[in-house]
Structure formats: C-alpha cells, structure tokens
C-alpha cells in the first residue's frame, strides 16, 4: 500500500532535498523500487523455489499424466507410459462410479454449504451480541472441532451414530424411537457425513463472521435501534449487507472445501454403503493409490479442478452483481 500511495509526509521529504521537478522525484522513486524489487525477489526465492518444486511441477506433471495410461508398471519406468490423448477423460463420463461420485459431491455442497454458512452466521451473531456470560467458553467450544484431528472426530461420531450402542440409539431407547443405522443406510449415510462436516467447519465460518461483525461500526447499529428496528430487521438490513464481503469469502472457501470433501467419507464409510458416500476426491484417491491408475486419477483431478474453478468464478460474479 505504501508504494502505490505514498503518504504526504514521505513525498514531501523526498521532494525537499532534490527540490527539483516532479519528474526527478519520479525517477528516484523508480530506482528505489527496482532495489526493492530485487530484495523482494531475493526474499521470495526460497518460497518460489519450493512452490515450483512442490506445487507447479506436480500440477503440470498431473496434467501431462492425465493424457497417459500411467499405471503401476510405469513407476520405475515413467517414460514407458503411453500417450492416450483424451481417453481418460472420455472414459470418466461413462464411469458409473465417477458419475455417482460427482452427484454425491454436488449433494454434499448443495446441502452442506448453506447449512454451514447459515449456522456459522447465527452462532457468530449470538456470540457477538446475545451471550454475555461465558462467551469465550462458547467460542472455544465451537472452534474446537476445527482443530481436532479427524481420527478423534471419527471415533466420537462413530460412537454417536452407532446403531446398537451409540448415543442416538441410546436416546432412542429412552424416548421410544428406533434410530436408523446412520452409516449403514444408503439414505442416511450422506446426511450423517454432512452433519459431521458442518459441525467441523462451523468454527471456521464463525471466526470469520465474528471478525466481520466487529468491523461493523457501532453507530450504524445504534442508529437503527433508535429508529426502532427489531433484531430481525437489524440482521437483515444491516448485518448481512455489511457482512457481504465476509459472507462471500466464507461461501467460496466452504464450497471449495466441500467440493474436495475427502476425510469424512474416508474415515467413516470408505465411500459405502453401495457408493452412496463416494465423493470425487475419494474416488480419485482409490484410483490413484489403491489401484494405481495414475493417469486416470490425474484426469479426475483436472475435471474436479475445472469444476471448482467454474463454480468459484460463478459465485464471485453472482455475489458481486448483488452488491450493485
């Protein structure tokens, strides 16, 4: 920021010793910027080198691999892989399991994202205004799932969902209803994983929202209250519009996260029962590491990448237009 809009004091100081024309100041500024650039590049080199080796190279290698039949035989002789053109991509769209995985992933996003954002906003508003006592306790409580390892989370949720001696099943026995076999049923497995994911990701959204809420000037709220706005009106007319950039950001990252959903089905169901929780990332992992069809898995990665890119661009467009 300081390089593009110099503060008045600094530009004054620059002008003073030279005392000359504005052009002189401009030239000097350019030269110092060159130096800054060099230093900048030097400082960035370690990162850029790592980025090139560990990000850029694999990304390109994956693209190349997606046009080959790279399999386990090619592990020791990568140059023996055959170029197969678009075969992997055309195969994907007649692969029932992949199509099912696409559908499941869409299901996860369509149900999961609104729930996460909605509940995240609700919790943030409550914690920001509603609850005065034990606020820190609740903030930590809602954020704890985010930093808990998935293995621990899985153990807890398996206990909650277990149909024979789980928490919900036990509650059912007390209250006289029969809990479904959540993870063993094709109907319930996906919703169960979504609930688990929402619970895990709520904290991230909540933190973002609280930060956003605290950036809203108190005067605006006070003015609204003086004018007699109800809590609901305040939320709809003031909080949500002023939070729009935060909401947009949270929605985009949550969507990307859910399009990539992997850990929940991996630890809880392994994609079952009957592929009902098979997601694109999980399918890709199985193809890549369990069956070692690397070329095919790479093609999946790129299809998923294009979908994520498309949806993100769309979201940014839609939300931007609304602000006008």
């Amino acid at each position: 920021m300081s390089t593009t809009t110099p503060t008045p004091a600094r530009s004054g100081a620059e002008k003073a010793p030279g005392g000359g024309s504005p052009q002189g100041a401009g030239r000097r500024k350019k030269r110092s910027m060159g130096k800054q650039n060099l230093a900048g590049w030097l400082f960035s080199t370690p990162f850029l080198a790592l980025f090139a080796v560990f990000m850029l190279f694999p990304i390109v290698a994956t693209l190349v691999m997606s046009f080959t039949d790279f399999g386990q035989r090619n592990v020791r002789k990568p140059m023996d892989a055959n170029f197969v053109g678009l075969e992997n991509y055309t195969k994907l769209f007649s692969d029932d399991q992949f199509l099912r995985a696409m559908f499941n992933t869409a299901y996860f996003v369509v149900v999961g994202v609104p729930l996460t954002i909605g509940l995240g906003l609700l919790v943030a508003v409550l914690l920001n205004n509603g609850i005065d006592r034990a606020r820190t306790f609740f903030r930590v409580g809602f954020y704890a799932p985010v930093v808990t390892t998935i293995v621990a989370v899985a153990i807890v949720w398996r206990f909650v969902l277990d149909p024979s001696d789980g928490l919900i099943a036990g509650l059912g026995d007390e209250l006289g209803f029969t809990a479904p076999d959540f993870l063993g049923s094709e109907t319930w497995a996906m919703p169960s994983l979504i609930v688990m994911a929402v619970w895990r990701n709520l904290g991230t959204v909540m933190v973002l929202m609280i930060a956003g809420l605290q950036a809203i000037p108190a005067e605006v709220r006070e003015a609204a209250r003086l004018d007699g706005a109800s809590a609901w009106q305040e939320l709809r007319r003031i909080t949500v519009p002023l939070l729009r950039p935060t909401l947009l950001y949270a929605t985009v990252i949550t969507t990307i996260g859910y399009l990539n959903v992997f850990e929940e089905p991996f630890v809880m169901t392994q994609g079952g029962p009957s592929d009902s929780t098979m997601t694109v990332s999980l399918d890709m992992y199985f193809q890549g590491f369990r069956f070692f069809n690397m070329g095919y898995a790479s093609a999946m990665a790129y299809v998923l990448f294009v979908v994520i890119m498309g949806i993100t661009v769309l979201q940014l467009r839609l939300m931007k237009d609304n602000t006008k």
Partner: protein
Amino acid sequence: MNRRATTAAIAVSLASALTLTACGGSGGDSVAADAKQTLTVWAMGTEGEKLADVAKVYEKANPNITVKVTPIGWDVAHQKLVAAAAANKLPDVMQMGGSYLTEFADMGALEEVDTKTFKEKDYFPAGWEQGEYDGKAYGVPWYVDTRVLYYRTDLAKKAGIDKAPATMAELQTAAEKYQKAGSKYGLSIQPNGLDSVQSFYQFLYSAGGQIVTKDGKTVANSPATVKALENYTSYFKKGLAAKSVRPGYDVTKDFNTGAVAMFFGGPWHMGLLDDNYPDLKGKWAIANVPTDKTSASMAGGSSLTISADSEHKAAAKELVKYLTGTKGQADWFQRTKDLPANMTAWNSGDLANDPKMKIWKTQMESAQVSPAQPKWSEITSKIDTAIEDAAQGKASPKAALDKAQGEIEGLVQK
C-alpha cells in the same frame, strides 16, 4: 488443487525425476555376505515391531551385519513402497503379501529367489505360490495365515448343538439354533465395505468356485461362484448375520458378549481372545471351514523379498535364510504366534502337540491362493461391490456377479 492429488503427483513425479537423474548408480556393485554392512528391512504392523527383537539376536550371531528394521503401518505401507520403488530407494529386504508382491514383481522391483537355496517343497504350497509371479519365485514364504471357524462351545450346549458344524448346511442350522438360544446373530460375515471378499473366500473356495483362474480366465459368474454367493447372502436374508457392519468393527467384542456366536477368524484372533477376554477361556473352540464341495479357506500371509536394486543381496539372502529356516521359524512362532510357512518348523513344541494347531495345519494344507494378477485389489473391489449389492438385496447374486464378470474381464492380465 486437491491435497491428495497434489501429494500423489508429488510422490510420483518427484520419484520419477529422481529415477531419471540417478540411474545407473544402484544395482551394480554388490557387497559380499561376510563384509561389514548394514541391511535395511521394512516390515509391517506387529511383524515390524517384533522383527526388531529378532534383528538384535541375529546381529549377535553375525557381528559383521547391522540389521536396521523399520516398522511401517499397514495403512501407509503401499504408498511408501511405491514411492520408494519409483526412487530406487527400496530397502534390502521387505515383507510383502501376495497382492503387493505381484505388483512389485510386475514393476521389476524384486530380485528373483535363488531356488537352489530355498526349496519349494519345504514350504506350504499356498505359501510358496504367493511368492510366485509369471512362473518365477520372487518371495520366500515367511509366515502363512488362513481362516477357520470360531464358535462358542458354552452357548452351543444351551442351543443343543453337540459338535462343530461340519458341512455348510450344518453351519446354517447351527446359526439358527444359536439365534433361538439368544444370540443376536448366529454368524458374523462381512456384508459390505472394503475387502468383504476376504470373508467370502471361505464360501467361494469351499463351493469349488473362483474369481479368476490361474491361467487368467474370469469365472466370476460361474455356477459355483453364484452358488457360493447365494449361500453367503442367505445369512443376511434370513437375519442370521448383521446386514450392516461399519469399518473398524471388532467381532471379538460381540463374540465375548455372545451377541455373535460364530465367525471366521485368523490365527491372531486366538491371541486377541486370550488377552482381552480371559474369562472366555474354555468357552470357545475352532474348527475347520464347513465342507461344501470341499473345505477350503483362503491363504494369506507374507513373504520376504529382496529388492532388485539392493547392493547387499548376498547378506540379505543369509538373513532371509535364517528367518525362513526351521530354527528361525520356530522362534518367530514363539514371539508372534504367526503360523510358520516352513513345514519342518511344525514338528516341534506347541506346533506339533497343540490340537488347535493341527486344525490350522489341515486348513492351511488345502488353503487357496489368489491368482497372481497385478490388478488384484481392483478386481476384488468389484467382488466387494457384488457382495454388497446382493447382501442388501439390490440385485440377485447372479445379476451382481454378471456385472462384476464384465468389469473384471477388462482388468485381468493373461
């Protein structure tokens, strides 16, 4: 970009790059067996941990050798081995099961076994076969395992069952009787999920069925295989077995409470039951797989392999010779209760006298090995799906296997 995909790409492409630049370095010079050297060994799970103790014993007897054992978890083993194979950084000696071995032999990462030193006739046929690929031996059998029927003898008395079920028909009657006497499920078999095929093998092989024959013919929907799946799924249809089992289900827990009266288990279940449920001692027994056309179980276990790139092949061979020889095998059984792959080891101590061990031995003699197919795990995943569809009643066993047949044909290497 997706994290897994990135990891995948990193592992493979980085490894490939290393292969390209570092070629010619390894595999050339080899060190003599009696020279001072360090052998690197990778083994999985419990075996990996126990092998470190054996390594210390071995080092004492062979002072010129330092054995460095790295235990690796089963969950990461495949990934680690593939990455190491790509980078020409495989350890000198590795533990490998049948499906891994086929894959790595196919990659050209394994050294052929010297059949002058290691004789086929010394080992269980099923153990030796697991180390073979394409007519050549790449692994020396280290330990074998198979599945037998575990059943509750105390509950059997109450249910009016006086002996272990000897035929498949008797197995089903026993399951019904157990259930009438109060067990929730008569038998525990896997209805869905990864590797449910492992609990299906007992039914499949006993019915005389197969998935792929040794010469590469797909027979996933043959009458015998269909019959086996019909028998298997009848337990779910009649409510004799749980229709839904989650990943990580521990059958011994329900076996202890009596909720499950019978299950097919491996040798390690004996230790698990003794250690975790000492009160259950004397209330359970094992029996051979009930006969259908025959009584045949699956053969599992691990072989020891030597990396094709190893510079210590001579010393590695000596270590493998010790571990798979009579003395080493008997010692290993004492430490782990893994079933020795070397048949002469069965002639002494507990192995010769314990009646339970005799059951394992007879089961092992007829146990069947999965065919050496490089894409075996992908092939069996199609059978997992067929089992699940049939168990849930989504398709008839015949229809489910017809679908699998078509998919498997494309994966089989002839």
